[in-house]
């Protein structure tokens, strides 16, 4: 490939007529713009709202797990989990006040 021929090839390609955009192209762009606007980023409050079903389910599961743990603990031990927790907090509270009975 000589330089002259390469130059000619570029010259010819340069004169090519570019394709004409379709008549409704701007409408297509505007549709995409509106889709984008609708999908605009949510505020943290909206995001929290969107997460609500999952947060509620997580809270229910956590409460269920606590109740199950209490039931299981009280079935296998003489005192219930709640009683032990009360006893423990009472001891810790009285110990802090210098009255450890």
């Amino acid at each position, binding site marked *: *490939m000589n330089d*002259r*021929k*390469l130059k*000619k*090839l*570029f010259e*010819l*390609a*340069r*004169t*090519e*007529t*570019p*394709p*004409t*955009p*379709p008549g409704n*192209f*701007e*409408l*297509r*762009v*505007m549709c*995409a*713009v509106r889709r*984008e*606007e609708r999908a605009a980023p949510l505020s943290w409050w909206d995001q929290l709202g969107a997460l609500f079903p999952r947060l509620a389910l997580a809270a229910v599961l956590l409460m269920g797990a606590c109740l199950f743990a209490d039931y299981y603990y009280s079935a296998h031990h003489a005192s219930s989990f709640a009683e032990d927790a009360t006893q423990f907090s009472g001891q810790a509270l009285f110990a802090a006040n210098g009255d450890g009975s």
Partner: protein
Amino acid sequence: MVNDDAELLNRIRNGATDEFAVLVQRHQAQVFGILHRYERDFQKVEDLAQETFLKAWRFLDRFDGRAPFHHWLSRIALRVALDHLRHQKRVRAEIALSDLGESALDWLQAPGDDAEPAAAQAAELLHAAMAGLPPEDRQVLTLLELEGRSVNEICELTGFSNAAVRVRAHRARAKLRKALDRLETKKHE
């Protein structure tokens, strides 16, 4: 209708979203022209043009008005074209002769300059031969040789230094010549 791009942009920024369509109409030919240098499939050119305008819309706040709007839009279109070249999964290692016009090949292989190919065939031939070039080198060569831009303009559009543009253009031209040489010998075999 507002004639000035700057005034139109102000109105769009102030909430006249629909007027963006006027801006699209005004600059769509320019964007199609740029993208057509990198993609021959019209449907894909249309998709890339839409992506270009969508990016312009997204980053409209970043347009400071120091350069004309069409310069800024050209830079976006070139970035879209470059990304497209990079993401093309299947780069043709071999140029399919069947894809090219017979007269273009005949001209390429003939010793003289008689019976020049049509502009579209020449562009097709170059497009096929440039498919193997690194995307950045291809873009520099396209801007320099097909769009007739100066080195300084290419620096401004691509962000490459003056030396980098010259090196890339030189390298791309050498590779292109080799690809066209391969095409020349292919038919003789």
